[in-house]
């Protein structure tokens, strides 16, 4: 019987990387990721983790060094947030284009300006099309399990793509939760040593990172796009394998109270815990609301979402990033595209909340159930826009 340990989720994330036997860590500290890199530095320093820890001088160099070490054949890990993710932005595309199985723990934080160290999804949304496989975690157990699974997904020869494991800054990274850590031997059996197809080694010289003329670029990107689309099948396989070995069954999307409800919320990350609490409270009042949470965000799980949502009358997308001038928030835009392309007829609503670390209240989620299209004290709908920002102070 494996005991659950009460542990800060950031520290747990580092312990997961340790269980995955990461070999090179190149990361730059940034709030609220700092505890991850600090703990990793500690366990490398005291010999608990046999790895090289590179004290890089910026996030751009962090991911660049990760590209180097991954290309050399080492299992590579990094972590960042917000401004750090933006600083490494160009390298995010390069890492996926070079098909390097780097794993990143992204501790989601609001983007400056104004400066905010607190959590929201503006950083990951700004990186959503960088070609990385993306997982979202609701709680600490999922963070640990996702990091371990991420390496297995990334390094699979049918995939060979970097994977971003997203966890909410402060509201998840800095909380203490009961987490069950798998045994090292069980992780080793699940996740064997990284066995690269090509590495940078003098015995077999290869050129990585050539440039492509217009005659070839489209084809190269098409092949890459097919790789990320096809990776979903591997993600599902890895989830199933993990479930068999460790008893925790993960799915591409998770549903809650979906059969009983005509109204369904869609959300990412730890906000889903609040949503489930709200759903339970509504149920006690005789009101049925459902939830679909995307565990896998990239590649976008169209089939799974369609299956879950096709008969629903009302869908409300709840998200934690501003549109930046777009017609709707980023997650809504993708759900809307899904609905349109599949001829679905549900009423679709967009709510934006939890920006810059502002708490998402259970009452606000319950309010969504009764919401009409007119603005109320709880939310502000900007003129001419079809999204509502919850809790804007007048």
């Amino acid at each position, binding site marked *: 019987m494996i005991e659950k340990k009460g542990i800060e989720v950031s520290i747990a994330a580092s312990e997961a990387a340790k269980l995955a036997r990461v070999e090179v860590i190149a990361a730059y500290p940034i709030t609220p990721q700092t505890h991850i890199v600090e703990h990793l530095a500690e366990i490398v320093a005291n010999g608990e983790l046999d790895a090289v820890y590179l004290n890089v*001088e910026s996030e751009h*160099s962090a991911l660049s060094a990760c590209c180097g070490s991954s290309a050399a054949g080492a299992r590579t890990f990094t972590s960042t947030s917000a401004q750090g993710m933006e600083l490494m932005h160009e390298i995010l595309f390069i890492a996926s284009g070079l098909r390097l199985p780097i794993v990143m723990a992204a501790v989601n934080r609001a983007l400056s300006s104004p400066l905010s160290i607190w959590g929201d999804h503006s950083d990951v949304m700004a990186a959503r099309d960088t070609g990385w496989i993306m997982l979202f975690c609701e709680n600490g157990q999922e963070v640990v399990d996702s990091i371990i699974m991420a390496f297995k997904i990334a390094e699979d020869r049918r995939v060979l793509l970097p994977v971003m494991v997203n966890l909410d800054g402060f509201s998840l990274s800095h909380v203490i939760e009961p987490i069950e850590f798998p045994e090292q031997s069980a992780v080793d059996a699940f996740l064997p040593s990284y066995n690269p197809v090509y590495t940078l080694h003098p015995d077999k010289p290869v050129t990585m990172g050539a440039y492509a003329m217009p005659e070839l670029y489209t084809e190269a990107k098409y092949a890459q796009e097919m790789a990320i689309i096809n990776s979903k099948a591997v993600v599902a396989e890895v989830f199933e394998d993990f479930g068999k070995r460790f008893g925790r069954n993960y799915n591409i999307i998770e549903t809650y109270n979906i059969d009983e409800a005509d109204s369904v919320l869609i959300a990412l990350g730890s906000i889903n815990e609040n949503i489930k609490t709200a759903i339970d409270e509504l149920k006690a009042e005789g009101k049925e609301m459902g939830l679909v949470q995307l565990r896998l965000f990239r590649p976008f799980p169209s089939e799974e979402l369609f299956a879950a949502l096709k008969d629903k009358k009302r869908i409300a997308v709840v998200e934690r990033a501003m549109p930046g001038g777009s017609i709707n928030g980023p997650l809504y835009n993708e759900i809307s595209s899904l609905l349109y392309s599949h001829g679905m007829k549900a009423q679709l609503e967009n709510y934006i909340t939890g920006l810059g670390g502002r708490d998402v209240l259970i009452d606000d989620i319950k309010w969504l159930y009764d919401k009409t299209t007119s603005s109320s004290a709880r939310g502000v709908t900007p003129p001419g826009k079809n999204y509502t920002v919850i809790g804007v102070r007048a």
Partner: protein
Amino acid sequence: MKFKKLESYSTQPYEEFATSGHRACQGCAEILALRLALKVFGKDTVIAMATGCMEIISTPLPTTSWKLPWIHVAFENAAAVASGIEAGIRILTDKNKIYKKDIRVLAIAGDGGTSDIGLQALSGALERGCKFTYICVDNEAYMNTGIQRSSSTPYGAMTTTSPPGKKSIGQATWKKNMPKIVAAHNVPYVATACPSYPFDLLQKAQKARLADGPSYLHILSVCPTGWRIPSHEAIRYGKLAVQTGMFPLYEVENGKYNITYRPEPFKPVTDYLKGQGRFRHLSDEDFKKIQDHADAEWADLSYLAADRKMT
């Protein structure tokens, strides 16, 4: 790794690692410099190259000029990528996943990817004591994208972003002293070189390769296209750069400066500058200013290289 002493053409290493078929400009001294350096570094080398002339002329998908493991990631991060490769090779060797082999990681970038956008990554890798060699191939501007200035562009030079005009002399600042900046990181070996002096370059490449820690080679790469000189004159202008004192050949071994070529006598800087189209707008006054500056720099260098006992 042991090297034979290089005395003559016949003792230089035979094998080529930068093959022909690349698209460098006619008369390019940069690819020549790299070709020579790689002969010394040899087979057991992994290259991290920055975006730039050398990367572009050599790797149009699906072809490559490099007979060594080679990776290009971005413009400003050759040193960071190299740092990661070195770490990866080290841990894989420690864990017995690859057999123990004396592999040298080599970061190669132009003056843009070194003294401007790449300076941070270089400084970081040097500070971490990464056991690698960094080669800056310096053609004194962002040549690959069409001759825009860098902080390595010499004073008075015409580039497209430092054009001379009524309100401008061209490049208004003096060439950033990259070897000195690198030496300030207290690394085992720093040297300047020029392919016009091939044996000096090869010997320095040997020392750089053997350094027990970071090493740095700053190689003047004459660019006929960007400097506006005839394409067959690269070697001659490289010699003039050295013989006028504009590009001194020296090394810094564990902080000790050593000049490896002393022009005797010094040629006037005008011998070097006047034939180049990029300086054709300069006046005699400007040339005097450049001469004075070169003299002062040489005096500084001589002072650093002199045998001095601390009292």
